[in-house]
């Protein structure tokens, strides 16, 4: 069975500080990976997707970047956090193109 792990569980960061969030999936080779952002009480907005190691496509610009250094790892980062970056960050995976996406447990971020 596939398992998806996100780290950290939660973060409180200062405006202007850097950020790195991670996601690892086990039990599935060459998954498609996705990053989403959800404001409190809001909908889900897809940020990035990746279909293979080293390739990441941006869906929406939010002063964030993503990388896929390994087949099972997806990283979301920024050098300077904004207040608007606060929210719930979710990593998701799918077995193939346009298949059902399954979400990880998420990371809650509060920027002060």
């Amino acid at each position, binding site marked *: 069975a596939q398992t998806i792990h996100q780290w950290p569980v939660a973060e409180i960061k200062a405006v202007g500080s850097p950020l790195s969030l991670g996601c690892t999936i086990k039990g599935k080779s060459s998954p498609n990976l996705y990053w989403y952002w959800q404001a409190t009480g809001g*909908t*889900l907005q*897809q940020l990035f997707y990746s279909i293979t190691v080293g390739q990441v496509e941006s*869906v929406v610009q939010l002063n964030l970047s993503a990388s896929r250094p390994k087949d099972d790892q997806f990283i979301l980062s920024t050098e300077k956090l904004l207040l608007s970056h606060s929210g719930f960050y*979710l990593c998701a995976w799918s077995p193939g*193109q*346009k298949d*059902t996406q*399954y979400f990880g447990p*998420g990371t809650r971020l509060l920027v002060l």
Partner: protein
Amino acid sequence: QQQVRQSPQSLTVWEGETAILNCSYEDSTFDYFPWYWQFPRESPALLIAIRPVSNKKEDGRFTIFFNKREKKLSLHITDSQPGDSATYFCAAIASSGSWQLIFGSGTQLTVMP
């Protein structure tokens, strides 16, 4: 541009009643429609999904009705239980073109005991 719309924003039903959640879309190339439910402080989980080859998909107490001509879907929850209280998201994606899974704004369902 809101490509997937959901209504109502919030819905309250009594235990045992049928809850009806609505979803509509604009892009006729959308051909996969998953519904996710999300409990407070948890991540979304897939509830049920439909492809337009059929106009109905049933899974226990949960049924999707799909009207391709009108670009509308509805999720019916029969015999609603307090444990069904959650936010329900309708989503859509096209098998050709953009990789983006587009989510609606969600319907917050409360089932009163």
